[in-house]
């Protein structure tokens, strides 16, 4: 650390003012400053990376929340759409409109209104917007009207100045016509997956996530809290208890993909042993299957958080309750558990947030189906938000880039809200004994 001390015989008081000592002190202080800057740099760079990631997502994703719409003049009767009003009232209306050739009618209308390349300006799903409009207002069948339909991805990019020249010419012409309008893309929050990037939405994935999380919570929370109570309050200290503790600690560190393999093996096992019983009856991408897998994954997180919260309740509470005649069960359920609840809930929310962002195990068990309608229940085929992001990120069409980033923004917003709630709960209800 320092140079060897001078022999005792020559020992004199240190000359702090001496040039050599001053130099040495300066060097040490410079090192101190460098170290400090390095530390601050590490913190700032890490935070900057987070900021850069968020900014990139916002820069790419904000357009995903907007939609470019074209005002399309349309006259369904004149264009020869052969369909009766009363057919629109039946549940088979979609089918009837499709087989009456609505798609062609809309394309023809676009060509007539916007020129020979007009149908290329419309999104492939534009006729679905007309279909919705007709179903909402059947009088459209008999009169001329203007319907707002989504524009194609290429058109949208041309509008942002990144498209090809032909498209930009079209944009200029339509701008002169005043047919372009931009607005908030409600369909993005209302619809599900689609092959057309303009028509995709996250509602299906979001609902799938909600259903999956419901199953995860219903299993992981009670099981996690109950086993934490047992281990912390009642378990005798023996080999079995040690085994339980070791396996919980290990489970908390097992990579998530392993839980996917477990889910797959169990599912395939029942698939084979049960003689294909579940195959047709319970799809592999059901929220029930995914929820159980994720529940096993986050259960150790909840157990560990709950145990810490229960440990934090001072023994005097237990002694007082026991002293006035409460049974051991009453001590825990009437006194310890309510006091530990804020900590338990915080841990649970953090675990649920982890489950909500998890992708790999769900990919493995097969929750990667192409879902065009939002799931109605726990056994319907569905997808979840992170898997939807993964699937969209694989799409080659450029329109999916902004949709992927927009979906990421939604996912991050939900996670941020959950973590914020956890921090709020911790700060509000944390008791210092």
């Amino acid at each position, binding site marked *: *650390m320092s140079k060897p001390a001078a022999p005792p015989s020559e020992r004199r008081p240190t000359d702090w003012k001496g040039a050599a000592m001053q130099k040495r002190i300066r060097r040490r202080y410079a090192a101190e400053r460098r*170290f*400090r800057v390095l*530390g601050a740099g*590490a*913190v700032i*760079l*890490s935070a900057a*990376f*987070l900021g850069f*990631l968020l900014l990139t997502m916002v820069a790419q994703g904000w357009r995903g929340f907007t939609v470019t719409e074209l005002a399309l003049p349309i006259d369904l009767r004149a264009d020869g759409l052969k369909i009766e009003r009363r057919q629109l009232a039946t*549940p088979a209306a*979609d*089918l009837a409109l499709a087989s009456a050739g609505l798609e062609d009618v809309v394309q023809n209308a676009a060509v007539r209104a916007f020129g020979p390349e007009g149908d290329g300006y419309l999104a492939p799903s534009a006729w679905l917007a007309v279909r919705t409009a007709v179903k909402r207002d059947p009088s459209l069948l008999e009169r001329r009207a203007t319907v707002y339909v989504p524009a194609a991805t290429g058109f949208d990019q041309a509008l942002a100045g990144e498209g090809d020249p032909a498209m930009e010419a079209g944009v200029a012409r339509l701008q002169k016509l005043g047919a372009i309008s931009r607005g908030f893309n409600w369909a993005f929050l209302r619809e599900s997956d689609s092959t057309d990037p303009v028509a995709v939405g996250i509602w299906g994935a979001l609902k799938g996530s909600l259903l999956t999380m419901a199953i995860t919570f219903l299993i992981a929370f009670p099981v996690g809290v109950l*086993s934490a109570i*047992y*281990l912390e309050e009642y378990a005798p200290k023996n080999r079995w208890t040690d*085994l*339980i503790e070791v396996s*919980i600690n*290990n489970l908390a*560190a*097992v*990579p*998530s*993909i*392993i*839980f996917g*393999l*477990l889910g797959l*093996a*169990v599912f395939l*096992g029942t698939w*084979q042993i049960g003689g294909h*019983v*579940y*195959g*047709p*009856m319970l*799809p592999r991408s059901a929220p029930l299957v995914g929820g159980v897998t994720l529940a096993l994954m986050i*259960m150790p997180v909840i*157990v560990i958080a709950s145990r810490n919260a229960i440990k934090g309740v001072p023994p005097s509470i237990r002694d007082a309750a026991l002293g006035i005649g409460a049974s*051991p069960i009453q001590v825990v359920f009437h006194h310890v558990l309510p006091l530990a609840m804020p900590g338990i809930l915080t841990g649970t929310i953090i675990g649920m947030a982890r489950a*909500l*962002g998890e*992708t*790999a195990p769900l*990919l*493995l068990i097969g929750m990667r189906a192409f879902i065009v309608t939002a799931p109605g*229940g726990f056994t319907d085929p569905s997808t979840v938000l*992170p*898997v939807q*992001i*993964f699937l969209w*990120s694989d799409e080659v069409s450029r329109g999916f*880039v902004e949709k*992927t980033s927009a979906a990421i923004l939604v996912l*991050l917003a939900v*996670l941020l809200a959950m*973590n914020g709630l956890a921090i709020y709960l911790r700060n509000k209800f944390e008791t210092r004994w």
Partner: protein
Amino acid sequence: MNPFALSFVILGLGLIGWLTARARALRFDRGGAKRLHSLPAQHGWFVAMWTVLPPLLFLVVWSAVSPGLVRQTVLQSPTAAGLSDFAFERDSVLAQAREVAKNPYDTEADPLARQLAPVVRAARNRYAWTGTAAAALLAFAGAAFALSRIRPDFRARSKVERTLMMGLLVASLIAIFTTIGIFASLFWESTRFFSQVPITQFLFGTHWSPQVIDAKDPGASLGAVPLFWGTFFIGAVIAMLVAIPFGLMSAVYLTQYASATTRRWMKPTLEMLAGVPTVVYGYFAALTVAPAVRKLAVLLGDPFASSESALAAGLVMGVMIIPFVSSMADDSLAAVPTAMRDGSLAMGATTSETISRVLVPAALPGVVAGVLLAVSRAIGETMIVVMAASGAATITLNPLQSATTVTKQIVDLLTGEAEFDSPKTLAAFALGLTLFVITLLLNIVALRVVKKYREAYE
């Protein structure tokens, strides 16, 4: 009735049972002649337990059994005679029939499936109602039995508490069952794999190309060494080169230098890095970092640089691990006795000298354990490498070239076509077992290190 709705109805019945029993017990109490053994609410719980638990257990069993019964009934119906004998085709038609039963306007279904749909619907309805009736019967029978036992001297409390204890024990056993389940399923599938491919060929083979498997010698193209190397290179080398300096320095700065306000704001900010879902990191790595790394490689004179380089995946993974290393380092720095720090400062050492020569050496076992845990997390990380790393298995020391990992290969092997007995699919389980064992060992070693270290100061 749908099992979820039915569970709510049963819970409602349980509530009614609870209220009734409590009211009854309260009436006993009023006489004053005979004191109740248990509190009225405990009698309530006793009845609620008997009302709710048997039908719920029945429902769990029933919902596992009834799809099979529905299937049996459908297959025995005369309409099903036209079904193919091949299990795969038959199941596909049945699956379509199930969809049509739900949504009659599905036009693309097989005609036979459309014919079968009413049969499916009828069978489902029948079994659903049988189940509902049986569950209701059980609920009422249980409630009646329990209510009949309520007397002033009935020991409701001990019964309820014993059941609750059983519940607690069962809940804590689930962790063991999960561990056993993981190990058993990985082990079982891996044994089947190793019966087709010698274990030495898998562990020491250097050629990995599961797309082309020679049926006579499947092991020749299933040598996992390139995967192990790629996993080690990306997860334990590149990612740690980012995570260790940044994590350690952040922890040092935030604990030793930063003001309380900075610490209060920056610590959660860094922790947010850990809260970002891995699929987001993967997307970011593939879309933003990988092209940048490729450009760098081209600048460095490699015009054919891969856009799926090991560096891009490793860098982003390292950033993801920063908060993990940082919080482990934070904990172990905080565990160093203040006297050591104060002593060093009092001797005239600067803060940085104190940190690098006293605090960090004293906290080293904890830091090392934290790094080991971080490595175990990095090599088990999946989505970043699935989205940003390459599928080509090469052994390379050049971070600008492509490398693949164990987790990436597991996902690739299992998300192709579904042939569940091929060596290709089973190889995924063997890789999973390897990953499981390695992360387990890393964790055990890390915990050992931490334990030893704690004993030194307490």
